[in-house]
């Protein structure tokens, strides 16, 4: 079943709703019954899925504005149930298993329909659905920021951050003026885990796994480094053509189903995506293009400046020091990165975050540091989002 929201503007439109209710089974969520419907009032009602087309036609014919509040009631209910059963284990201050994160994506969307919707952008090598959350107040002609986490399986703080950011968004919308403004005027596309197969593998087999879990023809070795698999100077430097290596660039660019799904999505939405953030760990770095060459991007001065300010924002909370700069000289030259690829597609503001710490715990960052790491990183992301908003192109 679908749930619709209509705001009748006048008595005539109220009459249309009444006649609808007399012709078919309509369950009113608000008000309680059709007799209480008045002009300018929010009217929420539920109809069978097979009647929804008729309802939409009728409303459209009569030029009545409407919204589909819940597209599939069954799914939403199941999500709620799942959330009690499985997301009972979900915590923003713990590292969550993939099944828990998957259930959480359904749950967070169902609980915040005005701000969050979930879609699937593709499937992993092992057949898992890749969930994407769209976060923002619905509106027309909105530009967007794309943010992904979980490229590298062992970087557990990364998916934790994406989950935290979504929580921040829904909890502070309407309370924090900066976040409210950002979400009113921009959408965030958030991919909580890109490399789901790898992430699962770090829970079941090898905590230090990095790559995807795809088989490589002619080799016993598994996996491709997703951040060497994009078409940006692909495999020219800082990547390996040996499938057994951690930085294996893959058979071809976008050979991995996961990277292809991401690239396809960005290509399809290129006209709206104005910034790209990809979250990794560790090292405490804020990087911008290029990594596949030592050449500076055309807007180097601008990127350098805002990276510096974003780093300062981040440090303002707990004094966590970040180093920033273009990838090649700040960390190492490495071709095939998603940030360089996104930039070369025309997304002018493209950043890689390497979160805490600097090597003390490395990939094994304690859960006790999740909150602080996420809180400080939110500041940097909000700063950058705000900057993008003020410099839309």
């Amino acid at each position: 079943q679908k749930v619709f929201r209509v705001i009748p503007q006048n008595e005539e439109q109220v009459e249309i709703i009444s006649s609808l209710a007399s012709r078919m089974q309509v369950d009113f969520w608000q008000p309680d019954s059709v007799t209480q419907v008045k002009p300018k009032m929010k009217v929420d009602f539920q109809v069978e899925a097979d009647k929804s087309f008729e309802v939409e036609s009728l409303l459209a014919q009569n030029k009545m504005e409407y919204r589909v509040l819940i597209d599939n009631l069954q799914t939403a209910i199941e999500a709620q149930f799942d959330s009690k059963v499985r997301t009972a284990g979900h915590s923003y201050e713990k590292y969550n298993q993939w099944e828990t994160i998957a259930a959480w994506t359904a749950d967070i969307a169902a609980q915040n329909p005005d701000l969050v919707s979930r879609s699937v952008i593709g499937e992993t090598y092992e057949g898992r659905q890749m969930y994407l959350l769209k976060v923002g107040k619905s509106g027309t002609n909105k530009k967007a920021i794309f943010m992904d986490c979980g490229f590298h399986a062992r970087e557990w703080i990364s998916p934790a951050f994406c989950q935290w950011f979504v929580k921040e968004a829904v909890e502070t919308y309407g309370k924090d003026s900066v976040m409210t403004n950002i979400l009113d005027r921009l959408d965030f596309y958030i991919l909580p885990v890109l490399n789901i197969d790898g992430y699962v593998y770090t829970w079941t087999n090898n905590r230090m796994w990095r790559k995807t879990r795809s088989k490589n023809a002619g080799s016993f070795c598994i996996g491709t480094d997703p951040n060497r698999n994009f078409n940006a100077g692909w495999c020219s430097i800082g990547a390996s053509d040996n499938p057994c290596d951690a930085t294996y660039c893959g058979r071809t660019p976008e050979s991995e189903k996961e990277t292809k799904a991401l690239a396809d999505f960005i290509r399809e939405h290129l006209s709206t995506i104005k910034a790209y953030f990809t979250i990794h760990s560790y090292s405490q770095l804020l990087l911008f293009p290029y990594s596949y060459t030592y050449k500076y991007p055309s807007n180097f001065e601008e990127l350098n400046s805002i990276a510096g300010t974003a780093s300062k924002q981040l440090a303002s909370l707990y004094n966590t020091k970040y180093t920033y700069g273009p990838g090649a000289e700040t960390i190492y030259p490495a071709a095939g990165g998603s940030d360089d690829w996104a930039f070369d597609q025309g997304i002018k503001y493209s950043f890689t975050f390497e979160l805490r710490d600097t090597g003390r715990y490395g990939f094994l960052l304690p859960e006790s540091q999740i909150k602080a790491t996420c809180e400080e990183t939110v500041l940097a992301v909000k700063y950058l989002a705000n900057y993008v908003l003020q410099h839309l192109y």
Partner: protein
Amino acid sequence: RSGSRMEAPQGRAAALATACLSYSRGGPGRALALRAVTAASAQDIDNVGRKYHLKLVLEDILDKDNIVNCTAEVLYHLGNTNAAPDVHFEIEGELKSTDEQDNTFYNRIRSLKEELVAQDIPDSHGNVPPEMEPIRALAQAAAGYVVWQNSTEDTQYHLAQIKHVRQVKRSDDYLEFDYMVLLHEFVSQEIIPWQMTVLWHPQHGVKVTQNSRQ
């Protein structure tokens, strides 16, 4: 300063200097880590190699207020030699004494009925049981030696995890531990298992008597 531009090769040299300092001054009661690089420059020396001059600020992880300034010189030798880089350093002032923690740890281990055995430090979620902190600090210091011996200008190693540690009872005064650790090499992103046999004594410090890449 809240953020800084710094070039990666200097960062690698600083990490190497820190590893050497760790080996030299670290132990169960002290784990030194790099807090900041305050100055760095590189100098090419004909027919010899590249020398980095560094000013570093180190901190004792087990006592964050315990910080110390160092100057260090790191010389990476030219060509494909198996020679470890030359590292020289000078510490400004004194590090706080760890005699008390050292002796507590020493006596605790000596009085164990059975040899200490442990694995996965930290565990997958980053937890380190408090009684394992000295074991970990000792591994950090010992790994400094392994890192130093195996570093080049294009590598940067961190101790990622202790997979397994086993105490080996000795008839003399030394404590001996057989570690299997995972080293994370930054540039290649490889995780390298490494075995280290580590001797320690409160008065004589850390010594790696045997080590091999697995």
